[in-house]
């Protein structure tokens, strides 16, 4: 098959809707357009039935026992907000302490910042050099004021998978709730809310080849029964936890996307690991001074995050403009700060500036991987020829010994 440009290799940011997902969604826009809350006619019943099938499929992909535990939302940011703020508000008489990690998504970190302003105390646990949190650190951080621990399933930048099962044992034993932002890992790495003792989990459809604009919060209903205060007031939908008319076609699509993951996720992960290793080998065989960020052992199948020393990330992105990837470089962020995730690993700001995240997905091919690897290698070589740092490195100058004039 001929290679088609541009190539999308940024599947952690979003994914295309699988045609099988779209196909199931379409009737719910046009002919089956009812409001799932309409109890008095067939249009409503039909929509409600579709929503319930979607809910069951979502429950199944995370090992939830009861589809009633799935609260539908607009996406993972809303789910994260609802989980943290909802639990904090409900349990504030029990305690005011929350534990999370420094490499969480901004939807968690910024929500925690907000809660801190409202009087809650938040402990941000550090990670090791591959981005993993030590379960022992969680154990040590728990106090009698702790109400919630929030640790992501897998990181969106470096793909590191967290030891949730070990953490779940600790939180369960101590009677503290465990929330996980699981968006990146659903269907891709093992995630089972029963086995891992996860009490709340944030999910979204668009990272698993479903539509944008729909997500869910898993809220455990028994052992323990988790309570939370709704953050959106209105018609009392979703058992009073999230008011608002349900986006029926999106929910149908979300359900189908989960169903595909249940049946094909394992095989797909094996394929993605092979593709990722092909990419890594092809780059590493042709270049020196390249480093993998994150864990090789505990890693999302489609993730490869590489620092190309002596080349700046945004400069490299510009050179490979027919390939959609992302960088931890400051220049690609509005804050002009390099990736806080890479900084948390202690890789050094210069390597953070030189990082590229490749996010492989369902529709990438071997041909694409080979093309991208060779393109990147060529451009890195060209940019290194233009880099004063590369020249200094080749002259044997230790860049750390140079008195840089920061600006």
């Amino acid at each position, binding site marked *: 098959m001929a290679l088609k440009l541009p190539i999308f290799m940024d599947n952690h940011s979003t994914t295309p809707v699988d045609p099988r997902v779209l196909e199931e969604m379409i009737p719910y826009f046009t002919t089956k357009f009812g409001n799932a809350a309409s109890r008095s006619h067939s249009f409503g019943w039909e929509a409600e039935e579709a929503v319930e099938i979607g809910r069951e499929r979502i429950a199944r992909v995370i090992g939830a026992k009861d589809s009633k535990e799935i609260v539908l939302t607009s996406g993972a940011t809303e789910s994260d907000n609802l989980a943290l703020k909802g639990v904090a508000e409900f349990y504030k008489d029990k305690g005011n302490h929350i534990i999370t990690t420094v490499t969480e998504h901004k939807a968690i970190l910024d929500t925690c910042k907000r809660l801190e302003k409202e009087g809650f105390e938040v402990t941000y646990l550090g990670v090791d050099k591959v981005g993993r949190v030590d379960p022992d650190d969680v154990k040590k951080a728990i106090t009698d004021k702790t109400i919630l621990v929030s640790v992501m399933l897998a990181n969106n930048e470096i793909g590191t998978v967290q030891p949730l099962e070990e953490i779940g044992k600790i939180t369960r034993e101590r009677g503290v709730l465990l929330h996980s932002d699981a968006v990146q890992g659903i269907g891709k790495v093992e995630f089972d809310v029963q086995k891992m003792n996860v009490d709340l989990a944030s999910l979204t459809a668009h990272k698993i080849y479903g539509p944008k604009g729909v997500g869910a919060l898993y809220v455990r209903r028994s052992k323990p029964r988790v309570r939370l205060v709704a953050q959106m007031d209105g018609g009392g939908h979703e058992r009073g936890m999230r008011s608002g008319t349900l986006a029926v076609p999106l929910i149908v699509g979300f359900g189908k996307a989960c169903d595909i993951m249940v049946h094909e996720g394992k095989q797909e992960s094996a394929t993605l690991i092979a593709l990722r290793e092909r990419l890594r080998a092809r780059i590493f065989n042709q270049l020196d001074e390249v480093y993998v960020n994150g864990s090789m052992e505990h890693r999302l199948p489609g993730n490869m995050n590489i620092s190309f020393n002596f*080349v700046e990330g945004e400069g490299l992105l*510009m050179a490979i403009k027919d390939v959609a990837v992302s960088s931890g470089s*400051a220049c690609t962020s509005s804050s002009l700060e390099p990736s806080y995730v890479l900084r948390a690993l202690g890789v050094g700001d210069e390597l953070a500036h030189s990082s590229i995240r490749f996010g492989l997905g369902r529709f990438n091919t071997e041909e694409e991987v080979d093309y991208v690897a060779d393109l990147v290698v060529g451009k890195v070589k060209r940019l290194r020829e233009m880099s004063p740092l590369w020249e200094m490195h080749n002259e044997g100058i230790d860049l750390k010994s140079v008195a840089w004039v920061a600006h």
Partner: protein
Amino acid sequence: MAYSTKVIEHYENPKNVGTLDKADPSVGTGLVGAPACGDVMRLQIKVNDAGIIEDAKFKTFGCGSAIASSSLATEWIKGKTVDEAEAIKNSQIVEELNLPPVKIHCSVLAEDAIKSAIADYRKKQSDRRATK
């Protein structure tokens, strides 16, 4: 972020990439920025006896706008006297390349690189006079 045509032009066909002999007394070298900040520019000038910059070279670690700013800077200073080159302002670079606000620091760095190369050249010249 979309780049201006001029930034893309300089990025894809940078002018004056290279290295001059930094031991040469007629060469001034400026190295500004820091790897930890994501941009480092090295700009070098070779000044003839008439005080004219007859050659300029650069190498830059940085984003497209940083590379374009340094490429443009070398183009502009070639053929100018040292004093004329010193008068170049970062705002002129911003204007020429249509740099957005978040990229203004790239032009500042280019201005600093010119000034730093000139300072190095002048220091070499005065050291030379002192030893004569």
